[in-house]
């Protein structure tokens, strides 16, 4: 017994080191399931407080750029309104149909914290549960899709950025509707990868990649980026390189997108799949 104690005492530093590292490893492995980021609500409230103050100061330097983006977005929206007004009067009676039709609501939000230099990047927004934000809502800027909400506290929410190696989104090529899985490989913040595209599909550099609508988080047709033309072959599928339309280093104003029929859709999809 005594020699055991002596042994332990001699190696106390090493033993303590191993215990602490084991604790750290447990923490790391427990957080690899991304749903558990929600447990950081308390920390997020504090860091959100500071981040918001800091962002208030920094946003003044970006006013010109933000104004420019808003002007461009206004132009696009006005054009769309015009196009809709010019549609010929239909002979069908207008029915207020809440099943098909927009079905998505948009909440504007400001980015108060963001990173692009880590493998797993997150975006903090200044909207939280008291604004109606829940996990699973999509986040997109006027330029393109940015991420998905994974954690919400009262005043702030955290979204998993598209620039996160855990991020997956069902995306399709706008021109021919072939869909694949969009992910980020951790290398360049301007490019993501669209995989599972069959290699017989003809693709042209410049093709727009949009959300396919299959994930119920984003409406279909939201822009993600454009194809660069680079592709990697792997068996029956190719992986295409996508230049992201959103510049994540300049992310400021975004929209939190809520699918009004999401619960219904999730329920029926779960029922059918688990039958």
């Amino acid at each position: 017994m005594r020699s055991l104690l002596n042994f332990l005492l001699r190696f106390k530093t090493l033993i303590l080191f191993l215990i602490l590292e084991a604790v750290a490893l447990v923490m790391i492995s427990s957080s690899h399931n991304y749903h558990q980021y929600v447990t950081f609500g308390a920390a997020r409230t504090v860091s959100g407080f500071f981040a918001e103050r800091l962002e208030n100061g920094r946003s003044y330097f970006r006013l010109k750029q933000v104004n420019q983006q808003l002007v461009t977005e206004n132009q696009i929206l006005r054009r769309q309104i015009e196009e809709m007004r010019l549609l010929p009067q239909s002979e069908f009676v207008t029915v207020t149909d809440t099943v098909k039709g927009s079905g998505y609501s948009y909440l504007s939000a400001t980015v108060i914290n963001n990173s692009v230099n880590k493998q797993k990047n997150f975006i903090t927004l200044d909207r939280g549960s008291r604004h109606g934000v829940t996990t699973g809502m999509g986040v997109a800027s006027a330029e393109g899709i940015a991420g998905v909400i994974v954690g919400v506290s009262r005043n702030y929410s955290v979204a998993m950025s598209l620039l996160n190696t855990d991020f997956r989104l069902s995306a399709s090529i706008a021109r021919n509707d072939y869909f694949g899985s969009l992910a980020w490989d951790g290398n360049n913040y301007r490019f993501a990868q669209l995989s599972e595209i069959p290699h017989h599909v003809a693709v042209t550099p410049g093709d727009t990649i949009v959300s396919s609508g299959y994930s119920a988080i984003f409406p279909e047709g939201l822009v993600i980026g454009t194809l660069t033309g680079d592709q990697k072959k792997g068996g029956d599928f190719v992986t295409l390189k996508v230049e992201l339309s959103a510049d994540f280093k300049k992310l400021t104003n975004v929209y939190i997108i809520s699918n009004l029929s999401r619960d219904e859709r999730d329920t029926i999809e779960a029922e059918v799949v688990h039958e």
Partner: protein
Amino acid sequence: MNRGLNYITSFVGLMLLQLLIFNNIQLSGYVNPYIYVMFILILPLNIPSWILLLLSFMTGFVVDLFSGTFGVHTFATVMAGFARPWVLSLSVALEASDPGSSPSSHIGGRRWFIIYTMTVVLVHHLSLFYVEVFSFTGFFRTLLRVMFSTVVTTFFIFIFDLLRPRK
């Protein structure tokens, strides 16, 4: 107690610097300076190793809390705290100095301090970046990130150390 207060101030100060300024320095995705490691570097020479390890753990944990990573920084700081005594034992320059003092270029000389800093920071950044990626797929790219970040972190720690008051 005055010394203790000094350390607490440096801890808080370094944390704030890290979180408000350095976390937002994103140069080309390869350079991620983590200057809070300085806290582990400047703890007294004669600190018992178990206190050193616990303080390293605490440092990493606090950074984890604010960065939203859970355990990644903790793992790296404990690794750095474990390596520190070993690196210190290799250096001859400190034999003559007061054991309760804090490692600094004012005591051991600039060249020694840079080597000491770079080594511990290297251990820390190696652990940090590889655990963050958690795989060997991006081996060389991560290695590059480690190298660049180590150099930049060491540079900033060296500058901060020069600014410390000469005892």
